[in-house]
């Protein structure tokens, strides 16, 4: 650590005002504050000091994402070898290595494009580099299907960073979740690469690893895809090889889906970290699940006789991106409601909308993305109403005391 500090101190004059590389000041500054908590304090006014700053906060979210990412890599390999019928003869590390090779390029592309734009903008405007993309850059690869081509991911990332974040004023000013905008862009621009039955499982080998032909009876549909397109009113969810798939499989995460979203256990580990460190609000998180469970239960007993309405409420919560969205997306402190009462309303509405879209719109088997984006837009309105209600309540009380 000391060696690193000394190295940075030695390099500092070169990048400071008047130094040889002063034009890259913001880049250097970005790295320095990333590695060490900045030593600068405010000179005027009253301030609350905390060891935590937004870079530390963001890193906490990235760490919380790790279990889901690592399991996602393993699951990519698992689904691939299941698809080519070699699962029984392949070891754990081969599965993981295959998934690692499939996912790594996505992470690299996402960070290269996003940070490239952030660095350029910061350099160009002479501002500090915003740290917000640390989390978005990790989220984007985790919410796309494994077969999503890299070039469209690059376009979507660039679109999201520019149009969802930079034009609103950068990190902390965005109205909607940047990673979800990237996903929504992909979803509406290239629907064949973002939905359907052919994108969730990687069927080709990578660099000679995992070559093989897809087995007979292969179907790449996700559980929600199967339920959503089912014509009968009850459906037995199967895995990609056509065998029955249990609820336990979905909890562990051995089902096809976007890279990071499948495992409830891995997401729960991240959720615990976020809640213990208080990065995410437990109110938002809990109310998303409450809203989703209640809505799904109401559809269960509503008498609507489609497979997706009949899907038990607890399966609604574990299939698809519901858990991932509830833990990592809906709780985004920038785009969610900020008032305490508002968090309950916001979270509940996210859960309600997600399940409602799933059940009532046959075109979209998954509704979590659209639900969160919709409520992101409504969050300032919710906050406004909560604040106004509080003001009028206190006014009333003040009047009754004065009388």
């Amino acid at each position: 650590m000391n060696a690193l500090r000394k190295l940075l101190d030695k390099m500092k004059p070169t990048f400071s005002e008047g130094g040889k590389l002063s034009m890259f000041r913001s880049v250097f500054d970005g790295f320095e504050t990333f590695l060490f908590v900045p030593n600068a304090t405010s000179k005027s006014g009253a301030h609350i000091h905390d060891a935590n700053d937004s870079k530390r906060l963001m890193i906490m979210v990235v760490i919380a994402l790790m279990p889901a990412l690592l399991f996602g890599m393993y699951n990519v390999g698992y689904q691939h070898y299941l698809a080519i019928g070699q699962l029984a003869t392949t070891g754990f590390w081969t599965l993981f290595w295959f998934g690692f090779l499939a996912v790594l390029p996505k992470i690299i592309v996402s960070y290269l494009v996003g940070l490239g734009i952030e660095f350029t903008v910061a350099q160009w405007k002479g501002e500090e580099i915003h740290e917000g993309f640390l989390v978005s850059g990790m989220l984007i690869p985790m919410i796309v299907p494994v077969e999503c081509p890299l070039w469209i991911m690059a376009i979507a990332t660039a679109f999201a960073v520019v149009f969802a974040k930079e034009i609103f004023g950068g990190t902390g000013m965005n109205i909607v979740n940047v990673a979800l905008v990237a996903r929504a862009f992909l979803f509406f621009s290239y629907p064949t690469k973002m939905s359907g039955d052919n994108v969730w499982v990687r069927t080709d080998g990578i660099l000679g690893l995992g070559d093989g032909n897809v087995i007979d009876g292969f179907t790449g549909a996700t559980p929600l895809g199967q339920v959503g397109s089912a014509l009968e009113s009850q459906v037995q969810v199967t895995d990609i090889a056509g065998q029955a798939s249990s609820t336990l499989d979905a909890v562990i995460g051995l089902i096809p889906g976007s890279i990071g979203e499948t495992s409830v256990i891995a997401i729960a580990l991240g959720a615990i970290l976020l809640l213990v460190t208080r990065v995410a609000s437990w109110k938002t998180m809990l109310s998303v699940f409450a809203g989703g469970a209640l809505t799904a239960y109401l559809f269960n007993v509503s008498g609507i006789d489609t497979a997706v309405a009949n899907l038990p409420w607890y399966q609604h919560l574990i299939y698809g991106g519901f858990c991932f969205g509830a833990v990592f997306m809906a709780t985004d402190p920038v785009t969610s409601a900020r008032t305490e009462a508002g968090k309950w309303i916001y979270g509940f509405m996210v859960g309600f909308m997600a399940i409602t879209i799933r059940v009532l719109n046959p075109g979209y088997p998954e509704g979590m993305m659209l639900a969160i984006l919709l409520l992101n837009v409504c969050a300032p309105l919710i906050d406004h109403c909560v604040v106004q209600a509080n003001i009028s309540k206190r006014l009333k009380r003040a009047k009754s005391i004065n009388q």
Partner: protein
Amino acid sequence: MGLFSKQNKEVFATPLLNNNPVTVQILGICSALAVTAKLGPALVMGISVTIILALANVVISLLRNTIPNRIRIIVQLVVVAALVTIVSLILKAFVYDVSVQLSVYVGLIITNCILMGRLEAFAMANKPWASLLDGLGNGFGYAIILVIVAFFRELLGSGTLMGYQVIPEAVYNAGYMNNGLMILPPMALILLGCIIWVQRAKNPEL
């Protein structure tokens, strides 16, 4: 005052850029979003609006001293409606396909805010020749923006221009895909926003 005096030139030229009805006055957005998925209809729409706006401006300018002030909006609407009906029938007669693609939006030119705006703000107070120039200028200003937006939407959304395929098949075989969002109206709004962004970045006075 000469026909091409400096003042008259300005009347014609400012709506093209610095006082563009779409990007500066933010008028006529609805039709700019609706008809710009393909370049052809956007071009026809731009020309139609230009012709209607120029003629309506001239007619209203000629009548400006005889129109009673209290019913001027109705008179303006009648003039515009008559012109729109004529253009609509001409389109149906000679370019039926385009007319089908434009569907109700030709009829909705009547309610296009640019028309009412120019008639109220300019034709009611100026002579016919200046009004004609003003109508042409604003019409072209509207058409330019429509064509720019439609150019990018058709190129990136369908890979074609005026219906001809521009992006070669080899590029598609290499994995390129058309952007479905470009066909949807939200992207027209974003492209329009980009044009406004570029324009205001170039000219901070706006």
